[in-house]
C-alpha cells in the first residue's frame, strides 16, 4: 500500500484537522494504517482483527498439538486394561519413560514453535501497518 491513500480517501475525517502547517511532514515510519488503528476507525479494527485471528490460529494449533500428544496419553495408557490381554507386556516402563522424561522436551518444542510463529505474525503485521 502506498502512503496517504487511505487517509485522503476519507474526507469527513479530514475536516477536523485544523491549524497544522502543510509543511510539517509526518515523521518517517508513521504510516496511515497506524493512525487508523489508534483512531479506532473500522479499518483500524479490521487490522487488529486480522492480527488477533492469526495469533489465535497459532495458539489453537499449539493447543491442538498439546491435546493430541499429551492429552491423549491417559486414554492410551488405559488401552491394555480395556482389552485385558495378559500377553501384552506391562505398560509400566512405557508410562515411566513417557511421563517422566519424553513429555517435557515435547512441551518445550511446542512452546518454541509457538513463540517463533507468534513473533513472526507480529513482524508481518508491523510491516503491513508501516507500509514497508
Amino acid at each position, binding site marked *: 500500500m502506498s502512503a496517504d491513500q487511505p487517509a485522503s480517501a476519507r474526507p469527513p475525517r479530514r475536516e477536523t*484537522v485544523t491549524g*497544522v*502547517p502543510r509543511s*510539517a511532514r*509526518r*515523521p518517517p*515510519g*508513521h504510516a496511515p494504517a*497506524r*493512525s487508523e*488503528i*489508534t483512531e*479506532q476507525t473500522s479499518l*483500524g*479494527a479490521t487490522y*487488529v482483527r486480522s*492480527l*488477533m485471528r492469526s*495469533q*489465535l490460529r497459532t*495458539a489453537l494449533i*499449539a*493447543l491442538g498439538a*498439546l491435546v493430541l500428544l*499429551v*492429552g491423549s496419553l*491417559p*486414554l492410551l495408557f*488405559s488401552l491394555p486394561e480395556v482389552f485385558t490381554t495378559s500377553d501384552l507386556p*506391562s505398560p*509400566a516402563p512405557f*508410562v*515411566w519413560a513417557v*511421563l*517422566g*522424561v519424553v*513429555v*517435557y*522436551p515435547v*512441551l*518445550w518444542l*511446542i*512452546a*518454541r514453535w*509457538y*513463540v517463533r510463529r*507468534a*513473533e513472526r505474525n*507480529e513482524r508481518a*503485521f*508491523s510491516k503491513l*501497518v508501516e507500509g514497508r
Partner: protein
Amino acid sequence: MNQAYAVAAVTVVVLATVLIGALGLRISRTTSDFYVASRTVKPGLNAAAISGEYLSAASFLGIAGLVLLQGPEMLWYPVGYTAGYLVLLVLVAAPLRRSGAYTLSDFAEARLESPQVRRLASLFVVGIGWLYLLPQLQGAGLTLEILTGAPDWVGGLVVALVVTGAVAAGGMRSITFVQAFQYWLKLTALLVPALFLVVAWLGDDAPRARFAEPATFREHTSVRVDDTVRIDLDRPLRVTVTGTVDDRRHDREPVALDAGVHRIGAGTELGFPAHARVPQKAGSERTGASSWSQPLASSREEHPLYATYGLILATFLGTMGLPHVAVRFYTSPNGTAARRTTLVVLGLVGAFYLLPPVYGALGRIYAPELSLTGEADAAVLVLPDRMIGGVGGDLLGALLAGGAFAAFLSTASGLTMSVAGVLTQDVLPSRGVRHFRLATVIAMAVPLGLSIVTVDVPVADAVGLAFAVSASSFCPLLVLGIWWRGLTPPGAVAGLVVGGGAALTAVMATRAGLPADGWSHSLLAWPAVWSVPLGFLTMVLVSLATRDRIPAGTAATLARLHLPEDLMANDSTGVSGGARQR
C-alpha cells in the same frame, strides 16, 4: 539423620534469603521498583525467578511421596504443572503483559471497565492466595518437625517471619533476586544427591521398584508409628512389637497378626522381618492427614481415567490464574519478552521435574515403610541417610533439607507478594510503600493464624483446590477477556461466581465427606472436568444475554492487548504529540 547438619543447612538458606533480600533493598528505590521491579527484569533472571517461585514444597517433596505411594500414574502432577505454563504461554502471556495491569484484578478492571468485577476478582485472588499459602506454612512446620523434632508451628513461623521481612523490606525487586537464587538452589539440592543415590543404587545391583504389587522390606526394619493407624493385612504377619496393637500392650514381643484389620497405637514400634510385605493402611481412615502425598480423592482407583482428566484440566488450565504466577508477568519489559520468559520457564521447570520421580522410585525400594507411617513426603529427606549413610549421607540430607526450605520460602514469598499487592490496592485506604508493608503483614498473618488453629487441613487438598478454583474462575475470565470481544461485566461476574463457586463447593463437599463413594464422589472430588466448561458457558451465555453492556473501550483495549508495543508506543508520541506540536 544428623540434626545439626540439617539445622545448619536451613539456617544458611534463611540467612542467604535475608541477605539477598537486603541487597535488593539497597537497589530498590522507587515505588515502581517495589511493585514490578520497574519492569526491567530480563528473561533469564525473570524465568529463574518464576520457576523458583512456582516449584513449591509440593513439587520438591510431595511428588516423590506420591510416586512412592501410588506409582507412575502420579507423574501426571508434574506434567500438569509444566503443561500449565504452555497453556499460559499460548493463550495469555503476551496479552497479559501488554494489558499493563499489575494484578489479575487490574486486568479485570482494565478489560471490563467495571469496579464490581474488580472487587470480585480481588476476592478470588486473595482467596486462592491464602488457600495456597496455608499448605506452605503447614508443610514447613512438618518438615522442620521431621528434621529437628521442633514443634510443628515453629517451621511455619520461621517461614512467615523471613518472607514477611524480605517482601516488606525489598518488594518485587529483591524478591526477584531471592527467587532466582532459590530456583538454582532447589535444582542443585535435588540434582547432586540424586546423582549419588543413583550411583549407590547401581552399586546395589540396581533393584527394580515394583508398583504393581505391595512393597516389601529389603531387610529387617523397625518402624515407629507416630499416629494411631489401622492396617489391613492380606496375609498373616509376624512382627516384633513394642507398644500397643489391637489395644494390647507388648514389650519387645514377637506377635503373630492374622490377615485382616489391626489397630496400631500411637508411639508403637514395629520390627518387620526381611522380605515382609509393607502393610497397607486400612482404606477409610485418613489419619495424619497433613500430607501432600495424599491423593485428592481416596477413591482415585474407582474412576482412574476420569480422575486423571480432572487433574489434567485443573493443572493445565489452573496455572494461568494462580495469583503469584500472573503477577510475575508484569515484571517483563514487554509482551515479546514475556513470551520468551515463559519459554525459558518451561525449560527450567521441566528440567527440575525430571528429578522428583527418581526419589519416588528409590523411596519405594529403600524406604517403603513411609507409606505406613504417613510420612511419604519425607522420602526425599531420608533417602541419603538410608542409602549412603555416614557423613556423606548427612551432608546430602542437609542439602535436601535446605532445598526443601528454599521451596517453602520462595513460593510463600511470591504468594505473599501478590496477595499483599491486591490488599494494598483494593482493601487498604491509600496506596504507597508503607501501606504495602502493612498489607504484607496482613497477607501472611491470616494464613499463619489459620495454620496454627486448623491442624489437619490436608495439604494436597488445599493445593488441588486452589488449582481447580483458579481453572474454573480466572481461566475463563482471562481467555475470554483476551480473545472474545463480546465479554460483558455481568457475564464475567456470573462466570466467576458459578464456575469458581461450583469448584469450591464441590471440593469442600468432598472434604466434608458428603458422597462417600461412587460416581458422585469422583465428580465432586475432581470438579475441573465439569466446572471449567460450566464457568466458560456461564460467562458466554450471560454475556450474550447482556450484549448492550459490552464496555465502550473494548476495541481499544483489545488492540492494546494484541499489538506489539513498538507500534503502540510510537503512536502515542508520533500521532498525538506530532499533531499538537506542528
